[in-house]
């Protein structure tokens, strides 16, 4: 059986490549965070440590709570930026991106400062190791997100985006919201429960 022409690039329409990609990404992230959460819950449940966290460790719940508000606010500004460019409002996009980047940077710097003040280190106990492991892993994601946000912000000032072409903002926004979702899970699990 021969071809009358070179066939175009073929992909299965059962599921689009974009969806396969995002599912693979989410799957890999679930496995990555899942391994850290498994260690955390194993340590917490199997060792029957009560109270949690073990004495004399204290989790900076209040500072982390304020940090959570900062990060969630950054998602609102990111959403505002995306909606702005969809309506052709470039100033809204630029303001939204600058605010999102600054809020994200504030979150990361606050996290770093809190690490210095917290009074324990990764090598102290398994609690300390899992605490730094989970929050640190999320911090790495925030750092990656900030890099993406910086690129989007610079491009927004260079006029690269329009109501018709703003895929970069859209994808960056999806990643940033994903980072926030992961923080909600980490904050709830590690700090509140």
């Amino acid at each position, binding site marked *: 059986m021969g071809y009358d022409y070179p066939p175009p690039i073929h992909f299965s329409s059962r599921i689009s490549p974009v969806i396969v990609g995002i*599912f693979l990404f989410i799957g890999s992230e679930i496995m990555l965070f899942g391994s850290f959460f498994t260690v955390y819950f194993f340590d917490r449940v199997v060792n029957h440590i009560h109270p949690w966290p073990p004495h004399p460790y204290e989790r900076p719940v209040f500072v982390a709570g304020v940090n959570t508000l900062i990060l969630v606010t950054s998602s609102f500004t990111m959403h505002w930026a995306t909606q702005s460019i969809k309506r052709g409002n470039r100033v809204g996009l630029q303001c939204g991106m600058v605010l999102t980047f600054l809020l994200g940077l504030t979150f990361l710097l606050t996290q770093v400062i809190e690490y210095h003040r917290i009074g324990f280190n990764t090598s102290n106990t398994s609690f300390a190791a899992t605490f730094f492991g989970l929050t640190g892993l999320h911090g790495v994601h925030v750092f990656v997100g900030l890099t993406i946000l910086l690129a989007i912000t610079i491009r927004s000032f260079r006029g690269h985006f329009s109501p018709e072409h703003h895929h970069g903002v859209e994808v960056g926004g999806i990643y940033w919201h994903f980072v926030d979702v992961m923080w*909600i899970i980490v904050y709830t699990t590690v700090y509140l*429960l």
Partner: protein
Amino acid sequence: MQNPFRSEAEAFRLLLGFIVAAALIVIGSRINVWLGVAVAVVEAVLVAWFILFRGRRERPIMQAPPPHPAGERRILVIANETVGGRALLSEIKQRSAGIRANVRVVTPALNSPVRHWTSDEDDARAAAQERLEQSLQTIRDAGIDATGEIGDGDPLQAIEDALRTFAPDELIISTHPEGRSHWLERGVVSGARERFALPVTHVVVDLEAEKTPSGF
């Protein structure tokens, strides 16, 4: 299934949902640890149910056939057990009358789920090949230029594969009558109309009626 990260707006709504869900778990666990666990389990079940069964279905990507050399009309026929049915042959004859028609018959190698997952497709392909050869002979005997191939077990996938290699102008899907057809039950015809940008003709072949004398 619905992709929660399809757009920035949907990812933002997902975040808001997570905040509410986490707040409910925290409130529950502050009252009683097991209440918190129960809230988390109920939320997980609800989310799974919504994503799998109630969420907005992803719209399939509309597939259009690539162009082919002018001067002939290409007809793609998808049929399995009904591939030798007289109603189908009659439809093909009618569609090919008076024009230079090129017919490609694709017979999906239908298989059981267990055999599919274990890649045990030899029997299914052999059975499909036998039906296809008989059908091709019948079509050629009627004076129509026809080729054939075994397709993917999923009829829509088999159509899409043939779309790429054969570039048809129209599509004929042959099924059993309503109530006896798995393909109709699975929405193969409506799915093909939704997914493929070419005319789709649905032919119902009642093999039992064709076997009886009154069917002639």
